[in-house]
């Protein structure tokens, strides 16, 4: 078990948002969290990644209790994450965007990422960054472009590169295709599927795009009012009448 969360509770002031949520993710699994708006998905995400501390409950990663660790320490242990609205280092070029997490990783492991007097990243760092960019389909001539001029879809892709550069053990994706055009979305779905197959990485994600969920997820958890109302194989969960009522609806759009 790579990720194990037990009885997570969380409140914003008086308002209790998560009422004892538990989840277990196996190594190599793709675990999807769905639920109606306001159910607490983003909040759960924040608790798992360390952006906020839970008011009760524990989060353990590969058997280690990380509940009290701040975000950057969890990131060093192997939590990679993306955001619902892609967050990249806008004013820097693509290559630097990827170099930064690589250097941070090397430094966190106690080694020096390069000579302090050298303004260029070291050869190994650069090679790794180039490899990641190439693998995610950014052509060489765009590497020096400033990231802020990327389109929505490309931003998401770049953010993915940034997350990968930390060599995560687990990828936490908050609505990875939100706001993408159908074609980009399809591309992203395909990419994730291929990536998963190639690397066998563990993924935890939230998503409202059911096509993506049913294509990728190995396990599905449904949250409603901060409580787990269903968890299991995607196909089984889909047919749960309660889930249909509170979340999926008649399913006209997925016809």
């Amino acid at each position, binding site marked *: 078990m790579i990720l194990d969360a037990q009885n997570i509770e969380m409140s914003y002031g008086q308002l209790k948002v998560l009422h004892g949520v538990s989840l277990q993710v196996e190594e190599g699994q793709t675990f999807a969290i769905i639920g109606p708006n306001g159910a607490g998905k983003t909040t759960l995400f924040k608790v798992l990644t360390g952006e906020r501390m839970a008011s009760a409950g524990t989060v353990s990663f590969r058997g280690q209790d990380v509940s009290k660790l701040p975000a950057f320490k969890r990131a060093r242990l192997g939590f990679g994450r993306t955001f619902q609205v892609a967050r990249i280092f806008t004013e820097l070029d693509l290559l630097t965007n990827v170099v*930064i997490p690589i250097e941070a*990783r090397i430094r966190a492991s106690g080694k020096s990422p390069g000579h302090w007097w050298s303004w260029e*990243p070291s050869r190994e760092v650069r090679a790794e960054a180039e490899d990641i960019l190439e693998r995610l389909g950014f052509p060489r001539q765009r590497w020096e472009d400033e990231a802020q001029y990327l389109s929505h879809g490309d931003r998401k892709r770049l953010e993915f590169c940034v997350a990968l550069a930390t060599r995560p053990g687990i990828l936490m994706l908050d609505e990875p295709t939100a706001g993408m055009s159908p074609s980009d979305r399809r591309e992203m779905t395909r990419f994730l599927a291929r990536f998963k197959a190639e690397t066998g990485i563990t993924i935890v994600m939230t998503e409202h795009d059911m096509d993506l969920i049913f294509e990728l997820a190995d396990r599905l958890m449904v949250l409603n009012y901060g409580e787990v109302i269903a968890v299991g194989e995607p196909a089984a969960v889909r047919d749960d009448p309660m889930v249909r009522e509170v979340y999926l609806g008649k399913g006209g759009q997925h016809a």
Partner: protein
Amino acid sequence: MKLAARLSLAVLLVAFLLAPFLVHPGLVFIAGFAMIQIVFALSWNLLFSYAGLVSFGHAAFFGIGAYVSAVALRYGWHINFLLIPPISAVLGAAAAFLVAIVVLRRANGIQFSVLTLALSQLVVVLIGYSEYLGHDEGISAIPRPVINLGIATLDLNNPLASYYFVIVIGLIAIALIWLVVHGPIGRTMQAVRIDPERAAFVGIDVWRLRVVAFTLSGGFAALAGSLLAPWAQIVHPDYVNWLASAQPLFATLLGGAGFFWGPVVGVLGLAWLNYAMRTFVGLSEIMIGASLLVVVLLAPQGILGALRDAVRRRRGKVAGEHR
């Protein structure tokens, strides 16, 4: 663009190096002073444009360097003066480190700025209590040192020698700041400035990085300060107060925030403005105030920002065109 920028830098460097042979001593003094201000402003900009922290009390660290070297010269410490700038830098960095670990734990954003302001004003008050530091009148008539270089001696009482001493140390400091900013630390600082939360999620210890940035910046500010005593021969609490702290901010904004060389352009611009207004006795406040307003309104990106936009416009190459 790149070429033009490099050419201008080269011209500027040559101008600094040849100043004593080109202009009258009043301007040479201003040039030396500008070099000190440039290092100070660059140290501040290291925080602002790279680490995303706004310090309103940076003059306190400048003051540490200034007072250390003033005291060393005035009270005739037996120490090779060549060691004073690095010693000042270390002391400034140490002070900055202490401030950072206390202040950054609790505050960031504007609160951070204000705390630095308050602490630096406290330094001013404390200097006022100290007999050794000359109370509110500062330390004046500071003798210029004779430096033993082993094979030769360098007598800073010679105007040329003292000028080149300031310029060379200043250039070394600028080179060091440039390297810090463009190396791995600089890159990480940028990431933290642009999006600290995002940076944390790739495993960057944001707090620690900010402490490092503040410490480095404080060190360079103190280094700049240590040049003041032998150059101006007076060190005064006015160099420590909030107005002094605002100088690098203005220089950076005037030159253009986000550019490494912005503060250089800004310091020179402000120095020129002050110099140009010197004969308007009694009216200089009005003239400088109006000039600042005009610059801000006409070039809200600073001078370098305006230049960049102008170049882009001429080339027809624009932001966001390529996707």
